[in-house]
Every structure is written in structure tokens, then in C-alpha cells.
């Protein structure tokens, strides 16, 4: 009995701590977005207003930034998929020399401070006339999600039992047909996870985009950097909320799809 009570108390304590650390800042953000001003030590804002929302949504340069983000992120996912998925399949299914080196090498790119990498890249991009171009930004974004787009789908392909592919071959399907009818659909949940993560990585990428794209191409995160520096706090709060909307929507959609049985079926978890 005492054991159970202690257990319950622990669960509640954990829940409260989590709520304070996760929901707390979000709440603060939400309140701030509607506050006329909110100064220490007042517990509540001095007044309520919607004018900050107007400031954000009426600013033409911000609208352009939103538009840029909504174009760049899907494009990044698409390019990364085209480049990385065949590589992921090869890593999973073919024993080629240097396979491990490739895998570890992909991972190693994330081991260095990003900023250093971007500075080097911008030097190269200047020479190649890629500064302030969409191509340049796309290269930065795609590089940022190569790891997700290779490792996760490679694991997903490896999780497809060989016998399922053999059964398809035996049933008269060639290699191509086998891939599209059996391997890909079963690996799809894993690939979807990789795509969602790539989308979010691209959507939130600011450092490289700023260095390569600004001021010609601003995205939502780079626009936010300028806002945080140049506008009242409330405007950045509004913008932060706006920035999180696509992520939240995407995660909600993906969650339904990922947890809804397809993944469970494919990986035999139930």
C-alpha cells in the first residue's frame, strides 16, 4: 500500500516537473503574445491586446519569409529523399566495401560545430556563386538532413524480412516490383519518420540559411532572428507561436499515421 502511494506520488511529481518545464515556457509565450506590456515583478500582464499579431501578419517581409519556408522545407525533403533513399537501400541490402565508413562518415558530419562548417561552406559558395541563391540554401538544408534520411530509412529497409521479398520474387514479381509492392510499403513508416524529421530540421534551420541566404532570402527562423533583435518581445512571441504551428500540425498528422498500426504491423510490435 505504502509502496503504491509512493509510486503514485512519484508519478505526480514527475508530471508536475515536466509540466513546469515544458508547458511553462509555452504558457509564458502565449501570454506574452497578447500582452500590452509585462514587466517584473507583476504576475499578470499590464493589459491585453491583439496588435502584435497585426504587426506580424501585416509585415510584407514576414509574409515572404513564411512563403519561403513553406516552399523550401518540402523541396528539401523531396531532394533529400531522392538522394538518400537509394543510398539507404544500398546500405541496408548490399555489402559493398566501405559501407561502414559511409555510415559513420554521415554521422561524423554532425559531430562538428555547425557554424564552422557553414563558414567554410560560405567561402566555397562564394567561389561557386551560390551565395544568396535558392540552390545554395537548398544545399545547406539537404546536408542538414542527410543523416536522418539515410540512417532511419536504412534501418527501416533492414527491418523488412528477406523472406517477404523472396516470397514476392517467388510470386512472380521482379526486383523493381518487389521493391515497390513489398519493401517500400513495409519500410514506409520508418521513411515517414525520417521525412518528418527532415522537414522540421529544414523548417528550423537558421544559421546556415542566414549565412548563405540573407538578406536576399529570409525564412521564418532567420526572420525571427531579426525580429528578436529589433522588435518588442511580444512580436517575437507571436512569431514563435506562428513558427511552431506547421511543426505541431505535421507531428499530429504523422503521429496518427505512425502509431496507427502501419508501423506496428511492419515491425511486428503489438
Amino acid at each position, binding site marked *: 500500500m505504502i509502496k503504491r502511494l509512493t509510486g503514485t506520488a512519484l508519478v505526480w511529481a514527475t508530471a508536475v516537473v515536466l509540466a513546469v518545464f515544458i508547458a511553462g515556457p509555452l504558457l509564458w509565450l502565449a501570454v506574452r503574445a497578447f500582452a500590452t506590456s509585462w514587466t517584473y515583478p507583476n504576475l499578470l500582464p499590464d493589459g491585453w491586446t491583439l496588435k502584435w499579431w497585426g504587426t506580424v501578419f501585416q509585415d510584407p517581409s514576414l509574409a515572404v519569409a513564411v512563403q519561403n519556408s513553406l516552399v523550401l522545407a518540402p523541396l528539401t525533403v523531396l531532394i533529400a529523399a531522392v538522394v538518400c533513399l537509394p543510398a539507404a537501400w544500398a546500405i541496408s541490402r548490399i555489402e559493398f566495401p566501405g559501407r561502414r565508413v559511409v555510415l559513420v562518415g554521415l554521422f561524423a558530419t554532425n559531430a562538428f560545430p555547425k557554424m564552422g562548417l557553414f563558414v567554410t561552406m560560405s567561402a566555397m559558395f562564394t567561389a561557386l556563386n551560390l551565395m544568396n541563391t535558392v540552390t545554395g540554401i537548398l544545399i545547406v538544408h539537404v546536408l542538414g538532413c542527410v543523416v536522418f534520411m539515410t540512417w532511419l530509412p536504412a534501418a527501416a529497409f533492414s527491418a523488412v524480412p528477406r523472406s517477404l521479398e523472396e516470397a514476392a520474387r517467388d*510470386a512472380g514479381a521482379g526486383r523493381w516490383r518487389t521493391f515497390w*509492392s513489398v519493401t517500400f510499403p513495409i519500410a514506409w513508416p520508418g521513411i515517414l519518420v525520417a521525412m518528418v524529421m527532415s522537414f522540421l530540421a529544414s523548417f528550423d534551420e537558421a544559421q546556415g540559411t542566414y549565412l548563405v541566404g540573407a538578406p536576399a532570402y529570409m525564412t521564418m527562423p532567420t526572420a525571427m532572428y531579426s525580429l528578436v533583435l529589433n522588435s518588442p518581445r511580444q512580436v517575437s512571441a507571436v512569431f514563435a507561436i506562428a513558427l511552431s504551428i506547421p511543426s505541431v500540425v505535421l507531428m499530429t498528422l504523422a503521429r496518427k499515421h505512425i502509431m496507427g498500426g502501419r508501423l506496428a504491423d*511492419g515491425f511486428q510490435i503489438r
Partner: protein
Amino acid sequence: MTTRSTKGDHMSDATLLADPAPGLQADGRSTDDRTSDDRTDGGLVLRGLTKSLGGRDVVAGIDLDVAKGELVSLLGPSGCGKTTTLRMVAGFLPVDGGTVTMGGADVTDLGPERRPSAMVFQNYALWPHMTVTQNVAFPLRTRRVSKAETTRRVHEALDLVGLTHHATSKPTAISGGEQQRVALARAIVQEPDVLLLDEPLSNLDAKLRVSVRDEIRRIQQRLGITTVIVTHDQDEALSISDRIAVMHDGRIEQVASPTDLYARPSTRFVASFIGATSSVTGAFLAAVRTPVPAGDEVLVRPEEVVLTDDGPVRATVSRVLMRGHFAELVLRSGDAELRAYVTGPPPTLGTETGVRIGAVLVYRDGVLTEVAR
């Protein structure tokens, strides 16, 4: 089928048992002695099949003829090369040497999708993202069978395995036995020349195993499909097969009908692998009626050991194991031990009894020389 009946006729005088199936017969001839025109009978023919994996000859020259409509089991302990053989027949594994012929056509160099064979996998290998119907329909879709005919044939196949009520279920939602039947339906819907089954019953519990086994045999006979089953279970092989090929160390030791195989195991290995045997040694040798040359090994089936008071050798019952409708006894005479089966109430421990031995199998250098009575 004509080939087989002719074969049966002209060999019947040499065959001890009524089964007309060809195989290793009393004169020691094996199926490999068949003439070349036997190959055109539309079944499965393997010639000199070899495969090395990791520097080891996993399959070391296999010759096997499976007549049209016949069910042959590849039986052997794990690691004997039976699964490797099956995978070469199905086309998943390229051969190192030899040929595979199906229905008179050489398919050795064809991929699995172009062979007229269908396989039932050990783990069923059903596609989890498709329904039962989609699973069974897939082989017809890849072969561009019309929609109407696909629907008809899928329904027929599901009907044959008794699963029409699960047509729209996902494979994960049905039981292991049902999954196995879906896998079988997916294979037979293709109307294959050769049906291949890899340990089809090993993932089922004992009770289900018997019913699925009988079902496989019923469907196989009804459709008359040439079938090869890989198994390590002798009961399964003995009860379902027209003929059994016993494999050992990458070679076929013997091909024969179940009755022949049991009565005349051609090698020491086959004798010990199929059914129970015990060595006749020491004092018990006196119970064998025919004289046996010194140095030869004498094996006896426990059911050929008879307990009778006027038996030539005296022995005591040193162990009694109840096995259901019969009991297994261990008899002791001096240092020698012998196993016997008795039906009815078993004698108590320490009972002294006379022993007579019926048919014995005599082996010289591991090869059968004589079945002495």
C-alpha cells in the same frame, strides 16, 4: 504417371513391399538409374546439384527425380543441406553446379519469379500490409491475370484451405495455423508445376501440426501437384510422403517410400534417423536366427524384439518407460542392453523373461548388406 506404373511392374518381383514407388529397391538400384526419357514426365529433376557456402560443401551433388504429382520429402537433421537444396530449386540461391529441371524445362539459370514453382515459407512470409485476399491475389497480379479470373481463383484457393471468412483480415490478425493456410493458398493459386514447402509445420503446435499436415496432403493429392517438402521431422515425412529422400552431410543417403525406408534403411545413418533401433550385442546375438558374419553390425527395431518364455536368450527388464498405447522396455542380459516395445500391461521391473528377435538389419561399414529374419 505411365512411367511410374511401368517401373513398378517390372520391378515388382524385386520389391519386398507392395508400394510401387520407385526408390532404392531390394536390388540396391536407386532412382538415379532411370533412363533419360523419364525426365520428360513433367515433374522435378535435380542433377548433380552442388553448393558451397563458406568453404564447406553444404550440398555435395544431389540427384533426385520427383514424378509429376508425387510428394517427396527431403528429410534430415539440421545442417544436412536440405534447406539449401530447396532454396536452389526455388531459385533464391544460385547453384555452384548441376541442373534443375521443371516440367521438362531447364530452369537452372532463371530467377525465382520466372520458375514454375511456388514456395511456402517456414515463417509463412505473408505481407503484413496486405489483406489475406491481396496476399493470395498478388501472384496473379504480377502475372497479369484478368481481374475476373483473379477474383475467381483467389476465392477458389481460399475456399480450398477453408479461409473465405478471413478474406479481408490482415495476416497479423489471424492465428498461426490460418497464416500457414494463407501461405499455402498463395502458393497453389499460381497453379505451380512444383510446390515447395520449407518446414511448413515447424512453427505450429503439436495438435495443429497434424491437422495442417493432413490438409496439405489432401490438397496436394486433390490438385495432383508435384511437391517437395523439407522437414527434419520423421513422423511428418513418413505420414505425408510418397517417397522420402534422407539427406546427410549434403548428400542423399536413400530415396524410398516410407514403408521401404523403414523396412530397409540402406545405411546405418538412415536406420538410426528413421524410427528407433538398438544394436544387438553380446548375449542377445544368440537370439538372432540367421548367422551374422563377425564384425558386422546388427540393428533391430524394438517391435521386432519379442518377449516369450521359450525365447533363446534370457534377460531381465531393467527399465520400463510408459509411452501411451505401448511401453518401451530396456532388457538386460549380461552387459548387453536391448530395447523392446510391448503393448498391454508392461512387465514389472526385474522380471526375468525369454527374448526372441525377429527381423534384423545387418550393416557392414555402415551399409545395409542384409535384412535377416
